């Protein structure tokens, strides 16, 4: 049993921490989020220079060869700064699908660009009728000579706006909710028939509805085997959950610590708020929830990285707790900041909104509790 980071991981953590401290004052974050493309191209270049974009890819292919623990380290620090650059969408999600499913030729064509920052990726997994079910897929892919022809709409696709390639799930056979018959495709986002409607999300990020009308994808664009895309999609979703859970932990830490600090400064009734027992206990509960989430994050991340049996069930437990505790910590951070907590001026509201969206991504708290109990 060992919860210590390796020296290499400590260096990684330090360098991300330094980047966030230097570049992510709230005003900067707001400025980036409110202007197209919603993040900084310079930051992205820095990520590439520092090697962060190679993190999850195999050493043999020029990557760092890291696992979910390394991603966790990066994402937790990103969570503390509410980083808007599309590391999750491009590296963890899109990159995760490509490295798992793409042919050698396709990997060689795409991954070097992903790692040097010149190519961005996205993952279109959600559909409106599916709610949170990855296997509920209506978007269809029909074989046509050496191509597939895709029709349908992928929903709430993170980073589709700037992605050069989008991984989408489509049905090649089976019924609407069969896990068999789902195939993953890597499609060029500028292909004919790809129509993106881009919009901001409440947490300051951006997403798109991606409408596919007779989009032709060459057969080389299939990731993994035809009809067998679900396992890859599920593995990518698990990585996604672990990544946003780590980000949530970073955000929770800021929220509870800012609250502890604020209540020591703010005086009402001739006392700092921090002296009121009812508020002290509330902050203790926020802290306890944060620690419990962190424990489950470590547990789920290590079990997944080590391929332990039962890892997936722990991931469900984690995502459930992150959603529940995230709302509790966020709501109480606002409550204990009083009127100030309700303003866009303080950073806590921004962290709270990110936690709310994290609960909605890859299935909310209820969804995962049901999966856990099943």
């Amino acid at each position, binding site marked *: 049993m060992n919860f210590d980071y390796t020296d290499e991981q400590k260096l990684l953590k330090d360098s991300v921490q330094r980047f966030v401290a230097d570049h992510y004052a709230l005003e900067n974050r707001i400025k980036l989020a409110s202007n197209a493309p919603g993040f900084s191209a310079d930051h992205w270049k820095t990520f590439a220079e520092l090697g962060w974009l190679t993190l999850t890819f195999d050493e043999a292919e020029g990557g760092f060869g890291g696992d979910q623990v390394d991603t966790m380290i990066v994402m937790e620090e990103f969570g503390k700064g509410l980083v808007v650059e599309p590391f999750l969408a491009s590296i963890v999600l899109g990159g995760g699908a490509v490295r798992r499913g793409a042919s050698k030729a396709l990997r060689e064509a795409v991954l070097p660009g992903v790692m040097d920052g010149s190519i961005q990726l996205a993952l279109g997994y959600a559909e409106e009728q599916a709610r949170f079910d990855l296997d509920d897929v209506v978007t269809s892919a029909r074989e046509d000579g050496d191509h597939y022809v895709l029709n349908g709409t992928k929903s709430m696709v993170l980073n589709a706006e700037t992605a050069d390639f989008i991984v989408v799930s489509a049905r090649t056979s089976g019924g609407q909710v069969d896990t068999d018959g789902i195939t993953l495709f890597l499609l060029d986002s500028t292909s004919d028939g790809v129509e993106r*409607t881009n919009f901001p*999300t409440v947490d300051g990020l951006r997403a798109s509805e991606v409408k596919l009308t007779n989009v032709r994808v060459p057969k080389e664009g299939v990731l993994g085997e035809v009809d067998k895309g679900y396992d890859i999609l599920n593995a990518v979703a698990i990585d996604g959950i672990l990544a946003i859970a780590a980000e949530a932990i970073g955000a929770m830490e800021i929220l509870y610590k800012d609250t502890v600090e604020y209540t020591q400064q703010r005086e009402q009734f001739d006392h700092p708020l921090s002296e009121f027992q*009812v508020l002290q206990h509330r902050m203790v509960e926020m802290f306890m929830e944060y620690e419990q989430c962190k424990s489950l994050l470590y547990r789920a991340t290590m079990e997944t990285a080590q391929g332990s049996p039962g890892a997936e069930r722990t991931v469900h437990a984690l995502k459930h707790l992150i959603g529940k505790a995230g709302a509790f910590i966020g709501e109480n951070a606002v409550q204990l900041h009083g009127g100030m907590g*309700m303003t*866009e001026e303080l950073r806590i509201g921004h962290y709270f909104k990110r936690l709310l969206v994290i609960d909605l991504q890859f299935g*909310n708290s209820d969804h995962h509790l049901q999966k856990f109990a099943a």
Partner: protein
Amino acid sequence: MDIELSAEDLGFRDEVVSFFAENAHKDGEDYNQWRMDWFAKAKDKGGWDVPKWPTQFGGPGWSPTQHYIWEQETAIHATPWDMPFGLGMLAPIVMNYGNEAQQKRFLPDIRARKVNWCQGYSEPGAGSDLASLRTKAVLSEDGTYYTVTGTKIWTTMAHIADWIFCLTRTDDSGRKQEGITFLLFPMNQDGIEVTPIITLGGAHSVNTVHITDVKVPVENRIGEEGKGWTYAKGLLQHERTGLAGVSRSLVALESLKDQARTIARGNSTLMDEPAFKAKVADLEVDLMALEFTELRSLASASAGAAPGPESSIMKLKGTEIQQRIQKLTVEAGGLYSAAWGATSVGPSFARAGMGGYLASRGYTIYGGASEVQKDVIAKNVLGLKKSTSVQTSKENGRNSS
């Protein structure tokens, strides 16, 4: 005990419903004209434009049950937009503590919806602990005017208000509840600067109001100098009534169910999913109970008794329920609740759901934070001594009464 409405009450309900139906806004009709006409017609009904005003000031003199029926029906039907500050908060103070000249000067314009008021209460250093306010008012040597300087915060609708009613400090030598003076002055004058505060839902309704050397004639002082806290406490009670929003929650809960029924899950809907259904049911149980808690308070008020202990829980429970409805709306919207900005994606209710949820977090803060509210109940209702970990001085809370 009898929970049936009397024949008179049922008749009143019919009358209210047909008034709303006859005067509903029609497509294409100018909104402002309709609004002014609506209030004029409500006035002709015998004071329906000012339901809560006493009869000597033109109110309808309804029984508590009639008020309850009115609340229920206004939650269901679309009635014109209105602001509570002049009508529900300032007017009772002017009626009780203002002189006749002030009543003649201010009440008609409030009733006609001609003048919009805002409430100059909280300050950066005086929130829950309102009595520690510091906006200074200095009386001129000839005793004809005050010079006011200070900062008010969380001032709702200050950016469209014509006048402000303001708590100011004229004396800081005694207890902090003493030396507070209640002044009225116009917003559109030199020395007043309104800065918007954007809240979490992205909305602009609250502001900071900077007041610098604004001269206020003594005729604009309500009651005596230094007694403003006493008047304000009466006003705070008015602010708290209605914050429970039971009628609105009953309507909101039904629309939540309707919304959840539009989210298909296989052959059924989200409303059939056990976890979601259980949460809605749990909420409904609390709301059913609160509806009767409100009726019990109304019944004792109707019998002329002092409000019973049950009335103290209305704001706490009511705001909690409103927040839970908003939270479930976000859950119902699923991933689409994250969509923001002008583009509409996913179920039609999702965009408003997130905005509503974020705004609802303020319900347990504004008008007295829930934690302070509970202190007041512990002291005044349960008769408990102050907790030992902190000694708060007596009567200094915003919600102390």
